[in-house]
């Protein structure tokens, strides 16, 4: 079933926060959404997918979100 807009909003929040915390996405960048066009946040999302050996789609798919919701270390994955 298509995610409700609230779920989608929450997922975008998860992605945004994760990329800001661990992939140096500058805070305040426009929200990532399923329809996001090319931009810094998509590049950062691809970087994260590459790091975790996922399919590099640039889109917050289910597997990407699953990893972003896993508890982890607070140190960024890329040089700050």
């Amino acid at each position, binding site marked *: 079933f298509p995610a409700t807009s609230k779920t989608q909003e929450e997922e975008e929040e998860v992605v945004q926060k994760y990329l800001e*915390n*661990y992939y140096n996405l500058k805070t305040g960048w426009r929200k990532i959404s399923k329809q996001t066009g090319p931009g810094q946040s998509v590049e950062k999302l691809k970087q994260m997918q590459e*790091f*975790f*050996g*996922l*399919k590099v789609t640039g889109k917050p*798919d*289910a*597997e990407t979100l699953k*990893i972003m919701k*896993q*508890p*982890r*270390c*607070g*140190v960024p*994955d890329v*040089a700050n």
Partner: protein
Amino acid sequence: FVLTPGNPRWEQAQLTYRIENYTPDLSRADVDHAIEKAFQLWSDVTPLTFTKVSEGQADIMLSFVRRDHDDNNAFDGPGGQLAHAYQPGSGIGGDVHFDEDERWTKDFRNYNLFRVAAHELGHSLGLAHSTDIGALMYPSYMFSGDVQLAQDDINGIQAIYGASQNPNQPVGPQTPQVCDSKLTFDAITTVRGEIMFFKDRFYMRATPFYPEAELNFISVFWPHLPNGLQAAYEVAHRDEVLFFKGNKYWAVQGQDMLPGYPKDIHSSFGFPRSVKHIDAAVSAEQTGKTYFFVANKYWRYDEYKRSMDAGYPKKIADDFPGIGNKVDAVFEKDGFFYFFHGTRQYKFDPKTQRILTLQKANSWFNC
């Protein structure tokens, strides 16, 4: 592995550490022990030594804090970030902060303090995050029962500090590479329509999400199963999967461990005492007959009668011609048996008792 950009390192090999405060989740002794073991992992493989001090400024200060704790890297409450650490250097350099909003444990429950401390100390010594899912320095929290440095972690820390004086150099487990042409398997089974491959601490399975195949810890699904499984098979009509190691076996239904396990293979299936472990097993869905492979022989067991068929064991070579005298793993799909021995995989038709194809063991992954 990845070294922290700029390659920060401690110039002196003798380092001190101090536990500034203690979490109420564990006794002080348990915290001291967890932290001491975590340091020990790294000192075992490097020339570094770590001495605990009780007051003053130590090289590595460890503390339990929550939310904003004056280092411009606030924690986020329960879950999410568990801890962080700073690269080697003076002042805050090397320090480790644990999020007090987490529950800290000394067992498999979230989150094991020894496991998290071992990871954070890797940062304190100059390591960044590794992309190797089997490495301690992998960013996401994984607890697979034992906490040990993977070979990837050892390679990383020795790239910074060299090896220890230890005459027998500790080695760590390697994470299987799904597209390694030399990949072999411990056990393979179907699970509710999927095929799961097992090797050491890991499972592998082909999924649409990963370019090649998904690889993760067995403990992600079944935390109480041992590593290094030797055989596994599914009894589809009972929706059960059985896992074997040594003379014991476990049964699961989906992700749930069934109660009363592990059980003994001799008393449950009637194997002679001379059978010490099972090499491979598969249950034919249509007939309910399970085949157990042990060295160059095999037994047949009836899942409906729950008893071994008479006239066994028989020689593998007599009834499964061409697959050799030893089986590492086997599973059934669409009425065919897929036998694995080393890097070879035989597709076998039990009706005609003929091999149909010979492939590489990892042909199921999109390599």
